[in-house]
């Protein structure tokens, strides 16, 4: 008997292996198909509505016609203000965790807090926004209150990605700097942050995408159903793209299919494009990694 011939046992093993591989492939494919189908459907039904006029004019006739310009502007305000608050706090928090704190029970608690902050339901963040910013601090329903709520909610995104970027900077860089007599902050400012800046940026971009898409946290803190004017300051209310989509699909009757699909497509397009930018940026960084 040829000792190298395949036994029936090894053949059946090979077959199980093939079956397993095929099953896992199908399972993964079943996840990819819906996202492609959904985006395709939104494109197909929403694209006819897209025009410069749709993007840059006001909603008309009880939001059943016209465009989405005030919602776009409102989303820009919310994202801008929340970014201005969350980015410095998040980056410095990561600097503390990576450069200052010694690993121990205290950093462990901070880590747990970050995990939980990321896990708190968005509607609970909304309740917090109402209780803390709208009522306690007396901001009223305003862009400021809504943005601060968004900032607290998206803080973990920035902390996590900044921390990763900081820990990718080799320790030798820091040691070289310390040995020249630089203080901790000087080292952070002159050596660590400049070397990590692009990694930090990817996290900041992710925060933007997240903040632009959220609806629940701004529902009761600053986003309005409909406003006939654009916000003038952070103390005004504003419309928002995500809120507008919610309103015209659930609260307003007789909105044309093109309008709702068009709005959904714009929101999805904005969020996915910002996200894709962040991903592309990350791949670019990985490719030209110098150390």
């Amino acid at each position, binding site marked *: 008997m040829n000792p190298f011939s395949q036994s029936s046992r090894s053949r059946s*093993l*090979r077959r*199980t*292996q093939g079956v397993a591989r095929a*099953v*896992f*492939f199908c*399972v*993964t494919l*079943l*996840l*990819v198909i819906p*996202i492609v189908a*959904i985006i395709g459907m939104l494109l197909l039904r929403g694209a006819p509505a897209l025009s410069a006029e749709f993007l840059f004019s006001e909603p008309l006739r009880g939001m059943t016609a016209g465009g989405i310009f005030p919602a776009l502007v409102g989303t820009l305000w919310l994202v801008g203000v929340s970014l201005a608050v969350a980015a*410095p*706090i998040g980056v*410095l928090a990561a*600097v*503390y965790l990576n450069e*200052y*704190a010694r690993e121990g029970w205290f950093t462990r608690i*901070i*880590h747990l807090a*970050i*995990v*939980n902050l990321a*896990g*708190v*339901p*968005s*509607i*609970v*963040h909304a*309740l917090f926004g*109402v*209780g*803390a910013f709208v*009522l*306690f601090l007396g901001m009223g329903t305003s862009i400021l209150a809504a943005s601060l709520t968004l900032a*607290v909610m998206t*803080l*973990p995104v920035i*902390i996590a990605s900044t921390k990763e970027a900081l820990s990718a900077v080799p320790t030798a860089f820091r040691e070289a700097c310390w040995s020249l007599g630089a203080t*901790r902050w000087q080292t952070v400012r002159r050596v660590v942050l400049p070397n990590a800046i692009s990694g930090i940026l990817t996290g900041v971009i992710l925060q933007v995408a997240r903040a632009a*898409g*959220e*609806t*629940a946290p701004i529902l*009761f803190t600053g986003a309005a159903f409909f406003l006939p004017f654009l916000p003038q300051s952070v103390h005004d209310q504003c419309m928002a793209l995500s809120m507008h*989509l*919610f309103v015209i*699909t*659930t609260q307003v009757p007789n909105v044309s299919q093109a309008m*709702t*699909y068009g709005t959904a497509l714009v*929101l*999805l397009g904005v*969020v996915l494009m910002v*996200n894709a930018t962040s*991903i592309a940026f990350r791949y670019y960084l990985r490719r030209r990694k110098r150390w």
Partner: protein
Amino acid sequence: MSSRRVARAGLRLRTERLLEVAIEVVIRLCGVSAILFVVAIFLFIFREGKDFVLDSLKPGEFFLSPEWYPDSVEHKRYGTLALVAGTASVTILAMLIAVPFGLGAAIYVAEFSSGRTREVLKVVIELLAAIPSVVWGFIGMLILNPLIIQLFDAPVGLNVLNGALILALMSVPVIVSIGEDALKAVPDSYREAAEALGATRWQVVYRVLLPAARSGLLAAVLLGVGRAIGETMAVLMSTGHAVKIPTSPLDSVRTLTATIAAELGEAPRGSEHYRALFTIGMLLFVITFVVNLTADLVIKGVRRR
């Protein structure tokens, strides 16, 4: 002359040191900000809801009654059982769908694919995670709703099944990415040892990796559960608005999160109803806190071993 220069240098050094101390205080403050915010979230929700908890809460009714009639004039009831059942039914059905798919995809991405395929899959799954929840709700209302009515001959398509399908798609990315991390954390020497004994890739996965990565995969599932329980806009839009305990996947329900989102705008500030909604918020906070804490402890347990 020289003594003045020394004095000036000393002054500069002192202001610099002062600046350094000031910056360090700011950095430390930001460092603990996450703790401060988590505590603040609970305190401020408690502050708005405490009057209900202290004065009007009847634990028996709140936890065990399925009757939620906050607007009724003479028959006011604040029972959350039906809402908890709504959240539970949608979450459980979502997990029944998401766990096999999520873990299967995690295994495929981590162990069976390579090179460009793997990168493409990871990007697609990351984009899946990025779709805003209101867009998911929109998909549930306008695409899944008619589909479910057609396929199952149901009177309404906004029900447990619809919400669960949406939630499954939303929590799969979490399960895939954490699950993949867990599989990657298994040392390569395990794989090599098994392969040296002649095991096929499937045998390696089934006999070696799954047992070794067990707790990491459990954590992935828990984080998916946490995401599903806390999801608001998507379930608000896709599950219909029926406050009742569901008996089939085709029943409409209302979840805890959706109740807050739907009713807070109409409840007058300071009313019993308003405070009851903040009490539901506390309940949600506690539930997700426990789920996330457990997931984290499970992950940490893995690392220590």
